[in-house]
């Protein structure tokens, strides 16, 4: 879950698609999060990736904020996990 400086809330899968790194530890700027290991950045809105080493985007989940409560509707897409990592 990400809260941007502009106050918008976004939800992405946490694991980078390049290797097993947590995007929650990354850097958020211009509505993108930069992976804390090798600087691929992912759109907080769509999950799409901008530059290698990651080649695939992460899933973005539908977020709505209602009366201060954050509701997340999980994406039904197949998660894009890095090679060698499986869903726990």
């Amino acid at each position, binding site marked *: 879950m990400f809260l941007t400086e502009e106050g918008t809330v976004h939800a992405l899968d946490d694991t980078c698609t390049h*290797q097993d*790194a*947590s995007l929650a*530890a*990354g*850097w958020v*700027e211009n509505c993108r999060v*930069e992976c*804390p*290991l*090798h600087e691929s950045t992912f759109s907080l809105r769509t999950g799409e990736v901008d530059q*290698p*080493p990651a*080649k695939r985007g992460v899933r973005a989940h539908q977020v709505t904020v209602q009366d201060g409560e954050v509701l997340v509707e999980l994406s039904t897409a197949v998660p894009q996990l890095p*090679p*060698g990592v499986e869903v726990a």
Partner: protein
Amino acid sequence: MSLAPDAHLLIIGAGLAGYYTARQMRTQGHTGPITVLGAEAHPAYDRPALSKAYLCGTTDLCDLYLDDPADPLDVRWVRSDAVVGLSTEPLGVRTASGTFYLGDAVVIATGAEARRLGGHAIRCVEDAAALRAAPLAGARVAVIGGGFLALETAATCTTRGAGSVTVIAGEELPGLRRLGQPVAQALHRLHEQHGVRFLGAARALSVTPAGHAEHPEHAEHPGSPEHVITLSDGRRIEADVVISAVGAVPATAWLTRSALALDPETQAVLTDDTGFTGIPGIWAAGDCALWAAQRTGLRPVGHWQETVDQAQALASAMLGGVPSPMQEPYLWSDQHHVTIQAAGMLALADEVQVLAGSIEAGDLLVSYLREGTEIGILGMNRLREVVRWRRARRIRPAALAA
């Protein structure tokens, strides 16, 4: 003089530097043809996993390809043909197959080759595949070298079920000289907790097949090992599998008779801080090169991010665009589920301060200072802190141009 938009660029070496240079040239707008000449039979691949996930067997070579098959670079790749000579007049290169390629500019990106003491080494995927196929379970493994590559490989060998893993680091604690006492102690402890044994300051002098050793009766282990390693303090270590990770030498043998200036000590191609060699049209980046700031010890050599940043800076200099600044040096390593990240000019530090965490818990955050000013940071599983440090110091291209 910047490169004409339709100029033909030759990149020598299809590794990290070769790939990222080609990619940066396209990103920064070059429209002319780009040819990348590589000695290897494979598409360009990324090396860091060779000592980690690939060696564990959890990733395969195709996972490591740098180019994205779904969105490939507009580049001509020539494989399995090593470049053997450089010509300045006319500008071009000759390959082992006898082909001469003419170019309007040449980027030398041939990387480095592992220094080999005997046994295994890990530089290319064939090296890693040989070690991946080696029967490590139950084996006595000896790793020579005390750098990150040696420590990662030692960690991976424990994961692979080695009977024992001994590291001959050549210093009292691994990383002591480069990283300082607290980090070296934490690394030592982390590895010992996972069953890795260190042999202190002794250095490895030679690796010999066990049958040929002079005094096998002095050996430390019973059984019939494959190799005997002789140490500087006279000890002899027996091992079934020996891995040497004792540094790399720039792959520039094909340039010794060229007009290029090579570093007398390492034979790396000497360049300025944009990768320009001083000879019109010829540039160099990655592990084969020594940029001016690396030669003076300001920046490290042989790390992934350094190569990626160089490719960007080189491309913008070659195209005459807004200069791309080199960011604070950055490197990372993965050992026993601990991600070690370092940023800044660690080599210049005269003081090391522990900011948080402990040696025991293996979660140190350490600050490096010079004359009281912080110039670097190292974290063990401290992704947030290291990211924040790097971002706070990021130089933007516009700031440089202003």
